[in-house]
């Protein structure tokens, strides 16, 4: 019996590992490396109503154990995603989570309404937290009532469960989480990137053309764990955790914090095989730690039962 199989709203996952939105395109590139059906699910790149070119380059900069990106939600637009990307992905036995973005409510609603009807889209991930688009985006992610209202609107039109992606760039993440739960969200995904910056030593100017960008990678893992720890104790909907995951050990830490599944983003750039590798290593690690099933790890850091399973000599 599988130690990794899980059920989440709208999703039957072979395993709790999925590539994070924007770090895996629409799957094509990584299908050169392995069979995408191995994945628990795939979170595709943010989709907007119209095609977007995004920000000027440079769009990425490296930081210690992390990276900054300011892609600016480049994507081929709803029509093309529906007619090209999703049908192509349908050849794989893997549920798709469609990342929905926009600069105003109508955009989100329009994309959610039609993309949720695609046969292989099993859930939506509402990106109310993109730090790299001037209007909308970030605002939806920082004001509880705005987020709640947007969630309601999207829920009204969606044919599949709706997960809302939270921004870590807020004073009170629990307040945001409760707001979108009240708005009817079926689940949460967190965290998106922290807003950061790097300067070019030679020119004195920001390295990114967009000046600021989103910080991702191992550097933000402690912040992601803390926020998931806080939120998972305050809401009754499942959390798909992300932020710096690059190993099976990291996955367990996220489950301990309160996640019910996880997404891997930046690590795909460092090792294109990171997802299948983690999927292979997880059962052995669970064995070693003495768990029958990965779900036993969820929230162990704050649940009463979790007792030490073994000790160091």
């Amino acid at each position, binding site marked *: 019996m599988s130690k990794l199989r899980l059920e989440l709203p709208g999703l039957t996952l072979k395993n709790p590992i999925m590539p994070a939105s924007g*770090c895996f395109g629409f799957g094509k*590139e990584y299908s050169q*490396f392995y069979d995408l059906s191995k994945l628990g699910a795939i979170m595709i790149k943010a989709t907007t109503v119209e095609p977007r070119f995004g920000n000027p380059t*440079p769009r990425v900069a490296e930081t210690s*154990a992390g990276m900054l990106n300011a892609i600016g939600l480049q994507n081929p637009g709803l029509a093309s995603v529906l007619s090209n990307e999703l049908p192509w992905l349908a050849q794989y036995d893997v549920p798709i989570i469609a990342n929905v973005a926009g600069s105003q409510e109508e955009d989100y609603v329009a994309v959610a309404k039609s993309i949720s009807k695609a046969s292989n889209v099993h859930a939506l991930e509402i990106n109310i937290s993109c730090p790299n688009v001037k209007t909308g985006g970030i605002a939806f992610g920082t004001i509880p009532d705005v987020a709640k209202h947007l969630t309601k609107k999207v829920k009204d039109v969606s044919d599949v469960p709706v997960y809302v992606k939270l921004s870590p760039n807020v004073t009170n993440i629990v307040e945001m989480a409760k707001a979108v739960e009240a708005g009817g969200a079926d689940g949460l995904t967190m965290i998106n990137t922290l807003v950061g910056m790097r300067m070019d030593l030679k020119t004195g100017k920001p390295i990114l053309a967009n000046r600021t960008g989103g910080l991702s990678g191992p550097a933000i893992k402690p912040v992601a764990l803390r926020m998931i720890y806080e939120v998972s104790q305050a809401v009754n909907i499942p959390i798909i955790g992300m932020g710096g995951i690059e190993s099976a050990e990291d996955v367990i830490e996220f489950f301990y914090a309160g996640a019910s599944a996880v997404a891997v983003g930046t690590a795909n750039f460092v090792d294109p095989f990171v997802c299948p590798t983690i999927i292979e290593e997880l059962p052995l690690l669970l064995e070693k730690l003495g768990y029958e099933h990965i779900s036993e790890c969820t929230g162990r850091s704050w649940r009463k039962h979790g007792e030490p399973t073994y000790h160091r000599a």
Partner: protein
Amino acid sequence: MIKKELCNIISQEEIATDIFELTVEAQLVNEITAPGQFVHIRIDKALDPLLRRPLSISSFNKVKSQFTMIYRTDGKGTTLLAEKRQGVQLDILGPLGNGFPVDEVNAGETALLVGGGIGVPPLYELSKQLTAKGVKVIHVLGFQTQSAVFFEQKFLENGETYITTVDGSYGTKGFVTDIIRDLDFDCLYTCGPTPMLKAIEKEYAHKKVFLSLEERMGCGVGACFACVCKTSNEQEDVSYKKVCSDGPVFRAGEVVL
């Protein structure tokens, strides 16, 4: 097909000030389809530096299953790379991208290869293949200063080679563009800093020109949209190309520099 491989370092040496020549043993050479392709290297197992570093393949040998890169130590990653000794294993992803089209010029015709600084390396394999094919190759290589000059001899073996240095400490003082003006050719291949590429594209709009671009990268395989460039000047137009997977070599005019 793109491979991820742990490659043994066969040799690494400093061939000019801060310029290193690194040769590794790798099965992935069998996947190389054209000069000008590149690889993405993970410098270290540690998470800092985190991202891979793109380096061009400057020459390869399928019989020996070896290929060579030439790079300049610049920041964190390349400085660490330069410390790696023979026998150490490097995590390399490649070959990546599309290289220079060798079939765009025929035996007997003349190809002009123009390189600037660390844009010179990929031109070496190109020069070898064109020469082997019977194409007359002329090289114009620009460097900052004498101490940064490398591979002059190797290029000379394949054909005429002009060196320029910005400070005039070696070869002709000035920029490669000053030299090209007086040369005739059927096809121009170039790699180097963007200002140089722009100047060449502008001056030879009527000629057959191929440019190799540089852009900061995330994934290196076409998934993250970090390395895109526009294919038209129209503001509204959203058509684009990815340097990592559609490039790094483009026909002049194909993308907006």
